[in-house]
């Protein structure tokens, strides 16, 4: 099954004043439950290679796994695409006595990577969020509006960001990022910060 998986835009790429790449298929599990439960916390750690339940609006990573805070009762667990069904099943098993729900939603979203010094600016043109270096830091995840659709953004390095949106709007979001990263459209608003 997993060897036939294609991501939303089959690896679309654009080189503007930053590099824009559609990431390949990414495993994603939506997990809802009570974050304060010890059973819940243990189950997350076991399935995410030790990445713990993140604090509000934070994202934790370990190995090939990441755990993102989506709302007070919802996490998004990311892992290699092929491993998502087994990890979702393991979560469901570990949480069978809890008021919790784990679902493999690996094909629900599109994932983009932005790399380059202008990445903050590319996003700042599209979202009502302060992306200044002192205001938005690595370890943080921000769910927000990107032009006319919902998206989530976090940093994967000092000059790189990952963007996720729903798969149905993948081409729209790619177009937004492409336009925002167009060579010659640099504003340089964060250049001195």
């Amino acid at each position: 099954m997993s060897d036939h998986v294609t991501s939303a835009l089959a690896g679309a790429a654009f080189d503007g004043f930053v590099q824009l790449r559609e990431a390949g298929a990414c495993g994603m599990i939506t997990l809802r439950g009570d974050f304060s439960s010890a059973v819940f916390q243990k189950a997350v750690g076991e399935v995410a290679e030790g990445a713990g339940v993140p604090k509000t609006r934070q994202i934790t990573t370990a190995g090939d796994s990441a755990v993102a805070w989506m709302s007070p009762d919802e996490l998004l667990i990311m892992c290699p695409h092929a491993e998502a069904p087994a990890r979702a099943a393991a979560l469901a098993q570990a949480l069978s006595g809890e008021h919790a729900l784990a679902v493999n939603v690996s094909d629900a979203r599109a994932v983009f990577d932005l790399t380059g010094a202008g990445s903050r600016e590319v996003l700042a043109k599209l979202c009502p969020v302060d992306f200044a270096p002192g205001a938005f830091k690595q370890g943080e995840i921000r769910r927000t509006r990107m032009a006319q659709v919902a998206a989530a953004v976090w940093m994967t390095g000092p000059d790189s960001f990952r963007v996720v949106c729903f798969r149905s709007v993948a081409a729209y979001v790619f177009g937004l990022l492409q336009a925002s990263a167009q060579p010659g459209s640099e504003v340089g608003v964060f250049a001195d910060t």
Partner: protein
Amino acid sequence: MLILECPYCGVTGEETEFHGGGEAHIKRFGPGSSDDDFHDYLFTRENPFGVHFERWRHVSGCGKWFHAARCTKTLEVFGTYSAQTTEPPSDLRAAISDKRPGWTWREFS
């Protein structure tokens, strides 16, 4: 433009990241209620020029519903609070009284 703080994820965001859900604290009148009560439940709203209480949803963010108290005259947001309540919290009402002495909204003041 309103600037709202989501009480669930703590984001202070601008209005376009949220979606308005109409007047707050509406008491439901369902089957068995009088026609007048049901009519008011469906159609009668405050529409004030001043202090107002509304429901909002952090639609592009954490997705949660919450309440907001704001001024329709100045667009000042007095505060936001949990959806799990049937009336504006007393500390928020006191804070509004400091800024808008003598305000009233339905049975609240």
